[in-house]
């Protein structure tokens, strides 16, 4: 979603008349409805998850075992899985996406750039279930082969790593498009002035464009992160859905090449239907949803704030 700038034209509209307008009332009603939806979601998640907060307290966040028959609800492995998958995705998508955006916005002529931009946007519309399908039918085998060749002896290709790689491809268009927008917003006058001093095109990119687009690019990365954290279907299909995968030693990378579980893969799974009968179990599931909501919204807000700052500068 591109940044919204306030419309310039409509300050000219006359002030409203005394008689209430239906359109106006309806518009406000709809806006409040939208707000109510979000608040209701937050409220419901808070209320319905109360039992598990009472039961496990902060243990919900720090416990490393999730076993619902024994009423053990530790979400740390899922938080770990979510973080790992998202970070792998960012580590792959951010450099390539930013590099590609630099190329298309700085070196390509206008028409080609537009063509590439629209193609990428079209490709961004590929549904996540299709990505999941591709992950299952192709990526899974590649990862499995590669890991076997490295002597890591995986059980299958369904690993946190696989999910991370798949996610990287999914968020690549987001990073590219938003970085391209951020670079385009940098003042053309300054670029020309720098060229006038004899700087090469690349120098202008490195000394003028990139520094000034910095907050916009960061916003792009954060928004992509938000998407990565919240993606369910594709991750569900290739992550292995194995509970309680947790590194034995602090910096061990072993769990990355094993099957794991993320917040979203748990929330998209069969356990959700099973849980409804039991208030505590259900509370635990909803608490996972609450965690996801809070984390993703926080990341999105930071990204929005940074994106705004870059448009104010321009």
């Amino acid at each position, binding site marked *: *979603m*591109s940044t*919204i700038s306030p*419309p*310039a*034209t*409509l300050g000219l*509209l*006359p002030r*409203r008349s005394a008689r209430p*307008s239906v*359109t*106006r009332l309806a*518009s406000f009603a*709809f*806006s409040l409805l939208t707000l109510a*939806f*979000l608040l209701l979601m937050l409220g*419901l*998640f808070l209320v*319905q998850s109360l039992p598990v907060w009472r039961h496990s307290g902060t243990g919900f966040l720090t416990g490393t075992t999730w076993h619902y028959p024994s009423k053990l609800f530790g979400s740390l492995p899922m938080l770990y899985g979510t973080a790992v998958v998202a970070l792998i995705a960012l580590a792959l998508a951010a*450099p*390539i996406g*930013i*590099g*590609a955006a630099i*190329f298309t916005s*700085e*070196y390509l002529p206008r028409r080609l750039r537009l063509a*590439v931009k629209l*193609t990428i*946007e079209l*490709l961004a*519309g590929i*549904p*996540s*279930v*299709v990505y*999941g*399908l*591709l992950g299952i039918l*192709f990526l899974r085998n590649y990862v499995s082969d590669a890991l076997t060749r490295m002597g890591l002896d995986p059980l299958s290709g369904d690993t946190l790593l696989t999910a991370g790689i798949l996610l990287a*491809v999914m968020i*690549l*268009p987001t990073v590219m498009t938003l970085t391209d927008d951020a670079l385009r917003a940098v003042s053309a006058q300054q670029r020309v002035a720098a060229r006038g001093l004899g700087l*090469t*095109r690349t*120098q202008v990119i490195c000394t003028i464009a990139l520094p000034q687009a910095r907050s916009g690019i960061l916003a792009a990365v954060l928004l992509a992160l*938000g998407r990565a*954290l919240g993606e*369910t*279907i594709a991750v569900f*299909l290739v992550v292995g859905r194995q509970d309680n995968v947790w590194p034995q030693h602090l910096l061990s990378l072993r769990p990355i090449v094993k099957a794991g579980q993320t917040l979203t893969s748990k*929330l998209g799974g069969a356990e959700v239907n099973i849980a*409804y009968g039991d208030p505590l179990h259900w509370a635990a599931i*909803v608490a996972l949803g609450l965690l*996801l*909501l809070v984390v*993703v919204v926080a990341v*999105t807000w930071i990204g929005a704030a940074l994106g705004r700052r870059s448009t104010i500068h321009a």
Partner: protein
Amino acid sequence: MRKLFDATFFTLTLLCAVTACGVLLLLVSAILFKGFPALSWHFLTEQIRLVGAEGGIFYNLVGTLILIGTALLVAAPIATGLALTHSVYLRNHRAKRSLELLLFTLNGVPSILFGIFGLIVFVKFLGWGKSWLAGGILLGVMILPTVTVALLERIRMIPRKYIEAAAGLGLSQSQIVRSIILPQSIGGLVTGSLLGLARAAGETAPIMFTATVFAGAALPQSVKESPVLSLPYHIFILAQDSFDPAITTKLWGSAAVLLALVCVLSLIALPLRLKIHEEAQHG
């Protein structure tokens, strides 16, 4: 020395661009290449038999169309209301920013949470069980930001002179809204809706607990306990048991059809979006 740095930088970014575009295009070709053999008129118009190993995806396609149609009916009026609130009725700058933040937030909410929310509210609390209407409503709310932003951008481009002329003739605010702003912004509504529907068509997470089943449904008869079949859920379920080769071809075919639907919806919006983009550049 500078020239060397120049060339290196250029090459690096070129490689990134090639990698990015290459990977994405590879994906699409893979799907098309694999899915093409399964496609036929038969496939599209016959309904499912034998748990997807035989027959076609007719009712899956119908179900998806019902879901996105409902989403459109939900999203269009609300998005219009939001856009008008932002552009016309809110004068305070901070209020506008808050509305933008609301849209931004809604856009970032993971789709699975829509599904969980729908499970709580529609399936259980309202007692609808799985219902096409619940799915449509959830999808409609989910695509609100997409539709609203397209509308806002279109409204922003309405030339000042129209508004000035109308205000000069003595038209009131609501008259201007009805006679100028709404008619002029239809293009934005169409574009936004098409983009939103393209997104909604491919979503699985909001509907898998609330609106769709894998088999045993055709056209919904009422609101309660009336699930529909859908393309993305169909693919989702089959993908988890993808070892039967007979299923695999059908699976690719379904994916190709879904992709085609999403593409068609996005591509129809393209000429409008290009026009808006051009006008924004020179306007």
